[in-house]
């Protein structure tokens, strides 16, 4: 299992035997910037998303913010827990507050993403 990060503050954890299944969410830094999350507009299973393309929308009290797909693929599942309790994005952004799972269409797209050390350094530079 390995976790990667984007400059748009999403994380993606790749798992599974083939290395082609992954879970996507937003980072602790991102949830801190957004403030209280009140709704997450999640993609339907079967939706095809492109790397860097809009995949979900997270609504805080104040504003709606786009969440982008870290890699290209097909959505297999969205997190049902977020429908009942969107504040999981604030309390457990990199755990129970995950957004959706997808099947990667091109695993080589992971190569351009950051690991945890690189992401932490990126956030520290902001």
């Amino acid at each position: 299992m390995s976790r990667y990060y984007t400059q748009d503050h999403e994380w993606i954890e790749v798992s599974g035997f083939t290395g082609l299944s992954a879970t996507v969410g937003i980072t602790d830094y991102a949830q801190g910037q957004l403030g209280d999350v009140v709704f997450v507009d999640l993609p339907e299973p079967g939706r095809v998303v492109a790397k860097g393309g809009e995949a979900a929308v997270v609504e805080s009290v104040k504003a709606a913010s786009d969440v982008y797909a870290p890699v290209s693929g097909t959505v297999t599942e969205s997190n049902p827990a977020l429908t009942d309790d969107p504040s999981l994005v604030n309390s457990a952004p990199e755990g129970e507050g995950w957004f959706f799972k997808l099947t990667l269409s091109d695993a080589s797209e992971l190569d351009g993403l950051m690991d945890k050390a690189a992401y932490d350094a990126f956030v520290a530079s902001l």
Partner: protein
Amino acid sequence: MADDADLKSLPLDGLHRRLGARMVPFAGYAMPIQYEGIIAEHSWTRTHAGLFDVSHMGQLLVEGEGAADWLESLAPGDFKALQPHRVRYSLLLADNGGVLDDLMVTNTGKSFYLVVNGATKHDDIAHMQARLPAGLHLHHMDDHALLALQGPEAVTVMSRFDLTSDTADQPGFADLKFMAGARYLWNGITLGITRSGYTGEDGYEISVPAAQAETLAEALLAHAEVKPIGLGARDSLRLEAGLPLYGHDLTPQITPVEADLAFAISKRRKAEGGFPGAERVLDQLFNGAPRKRVGLAIEGRMPAREGATVWAGETQVGVVTSGGFAPSLNAPIAMAYVETPLAADGTALEIDVRGKRIAARVVPMPFRQKNYVREGDRK
């Protein structure tokens, strides 16, 4: 963002940063959007007392013989009948009746004290200066900060302050009711206090010399009932209270009747006119306006934001001008302008949010009951 060279600092900038505020650009100033979080700050204000720094707003004094008459040439209030130490909500109108700004007007007994919006204050001043007759003076109190203490415990906290009346013929602090105001001395500092606000709660707005603003803010925050509250909660509080925000729910393209603010046109002015755009505004008042500002209760959890379109079947009938999540109602709400035939309470409509249609219903505003303590109330 907070380092933006064009941004001005508020007198309490250092205090906000020490309190851990996230600062954002607003109306040309670096301003606190939140401290601990919008929902927590919103709820605190509804149950205790919140301290807001609204020093970006413009504080103006109109002095001289005939000030009331002149104000009546700019806005549709009955300022000649506004008693000393009373406050009125009013609207600065363009010649076509469009709303240039909304404002609070206090008769101080010697002058009129105006509070206008921060983003519009320079345009307002230019508009007024261009129409100022000889003998009247318009003073921008840009050496003063403005604090708002809002919430059911605001009166408890302020009552602990040793406030001495500035003059003999004004209400003592204990007798100050909603939409009244006067000057008081506190620790040698002159405070202009009105019992008013824009959160739907009881409370005060306090004008204080900028140099003493931090002393006052620290003294207020020393009380356990008081927490600092940012702009984010100020917006959700006023939205729940059904109060329009200038630049969003009010613009020069909107008239007072369309904005459902006809209460700001005093009875005498309705009969006599004589304010900017009176012909058009009074025609709308008596014969109806094409559209109206309404409150929308939204089904489900997905908020509809400013700019979202409002639909009746396949016809677009309006647009959302403010929308978000209402923490006290735990549901999304919005203000919108819709065609008048569809503005009746209970009308079922739809809002387009990112290509999805969500169900909405016209509801009376305020969305949540206001907690004002008015003249004649027992409290």
